[in-house]
């Protein structure tokens, strides 16, 4: 019984991690209708920059994460600069290939800089453990849950209650009409890409301490993000939170009760099942407001 409870707790933590990792792509997909298959490598880079700033440059953890976010935002801006034409033309095939290629470039650059050996991002919060009977949780786990909840509530508020959020929703619904409203659509696209880069770097800084990090990682992250985003309903902020947490609990229970080796396959089966039953996913897209 306590084992099952522990698995559910793990699932909740992993689920919030999934949701946190997916948030940038959710907005990207909802607003610019873009996919980013370099997302996983951006996660990897976020983890390594945090590790470098923390373990090598000796900065405190709370300062290392924002530095990694800054690097992530710059990478997002560069990506958007390169893909702007394809973004405006909604050339999805080009964008898929370009982002996939960009991911490999990031992998190569990271391997050159950080080497190919695994590292451990040993944050002060990972050392703090809370125990209750046989159940346990680290402060890092709690921070992941808290950060995910705050970011999702914050993003929802930003989108639905601020002027900038309204502009983003206008561009999401109809970028051409947004131009006629005097909106600099290009700037909104840049903003969304910078957010994607910073958000995935932040997620990496929070989530990567749970496992050893390698410059070759990224595939699992991009696949799970893809599942979360599609499950949640393309571009829905609230939907991807629910989908992330749900998927975390599902994979964690599946790994414990069935077999850990097949969790990715099981996640995809779940995705297919949900798409058959609810073709638009669990939520609606950003443009329709996450009401």
């Amino acid at each position, binding site marked *: 019984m306590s084992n099952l409870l522990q698995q559910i707790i793990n699932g909740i933590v992993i689920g919030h991690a999934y949701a946190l990792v997916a948030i940038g792509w959710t907005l990207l997909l909802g607003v610019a209708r873009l996919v980013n298959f370099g997302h996983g490598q951006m996660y990897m880079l976020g983890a390594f920059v945090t590790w470098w700033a923390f373990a090598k440059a000796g900065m405190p953890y709370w300062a290392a994460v924002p530095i990694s976010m800054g690097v992530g935002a710059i990478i997002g801006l560069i990506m958007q600069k390169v893909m702007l034409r394809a973004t405006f*033309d909604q050339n999805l095939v080009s964008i898929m290939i370009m982002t996939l290629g960009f991911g490999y470039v990031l992998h190569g650059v990271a391997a050159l800089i950080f080497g190919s050996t695994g590292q451990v991002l040993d944050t002060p919060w990972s050392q703090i453990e809370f125990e209750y009977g046989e159940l346990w949780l680290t402060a890092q786990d709690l921070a992941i849950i808290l950060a995910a909840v705050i970011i999702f509530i914050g993003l929802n508020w930003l989108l639905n209650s601020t*002027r900038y959020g*309204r*502009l983003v*929703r*206008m561009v999401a*619904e*109809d970028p*051409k*009409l*947004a*131009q*006629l*409203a*005097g*909106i*600099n*659509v290009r700037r909104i696209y840049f903003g969304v890409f910078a957010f994607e880069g910073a958000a995935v770097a932040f997620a990496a800084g929070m989530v990567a301490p749970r496992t050893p990090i390698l410059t070759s990682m990224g595939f699992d992250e991009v696949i799970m993000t893809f599942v979360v985003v599609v499950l949640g309903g393309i571009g829905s902020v609230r939907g991807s939170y629910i989908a992330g947490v749900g998927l975390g609990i599902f994979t964690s229970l599946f790994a414990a009760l069935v077999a850990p080796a097949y969790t990715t396959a099981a996640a995809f089966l779940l995705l297919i099942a949900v798409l058959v039953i609810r073709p638009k996913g669990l939520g609606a897209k950003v*443009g*329709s*407001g996450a009401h």
Partner: protein
Amino acid sequence: MTSSSQLTPVLSVQNLKVRYSGNLAVDVQSLEVGRGEVVGVVGANGAGKSSLVNGLLDWSRGVAQVTGNVRLDGALLDSIPTHQRIRSGLLLVPEGRLIFSQLSVHENLTTSFDQVNTDYRRIYSRDDVYDLFPRLKERRHHLGSQLSGGERQMLGIGRALMMGPKLLMLDEPSIGLAPMLVSQVLQTMKTLARAGLSILLVEQNVRAALSVVDRLVLLERGRIVMQGSAVEMENSPRIAEAYLGTH
């Protein structure tokens, strides 16, 4: 306002060409709209009416290539992107999707930028728009998608008025509306024109256009083939035969 600025046409176009993948859709040598003037652009389907007004903003739902000189109040707009042309007061209520359907009426009536240089233009507040279209006030909490065609047209015009038009361009505002709503939209245009607003009206319905415009321009295959005052054009056999269905 200087006397010279009163003489400058609010819109002046030279040698405007709009192409879609190489095909010339608009080829207008010269077109002017005077301050406070209401000019109608009429012509058959596919004559290039929409391409003309869209081209003035270097805007298109497709991929259009636009060349030529466009001046608003004497200022050359050529190298300025669409959203900046909008901010400088060249406003378009496009045909088709003209409002944000997933935003409420209230949100649709919120401007997306701060006006810096307002010159002589009137910038409508949301309440001004509600005074002009009381129906919108009743429906202010509804989403754009819940509005009827006529209400969408009102909302589109209201949105444009709040951005401070120097020239308001309307692309087929009467399309798909019931006759009573058409006359209501035309009535609104007359009210705005009387208040001094310059308007460029694209209409397929020539009779409707003639009831509001000062001057009418006839477009065929992207070229201006005839223009004149409303009275002249109404009495022209060519217009009467081809567009009014009378002899």
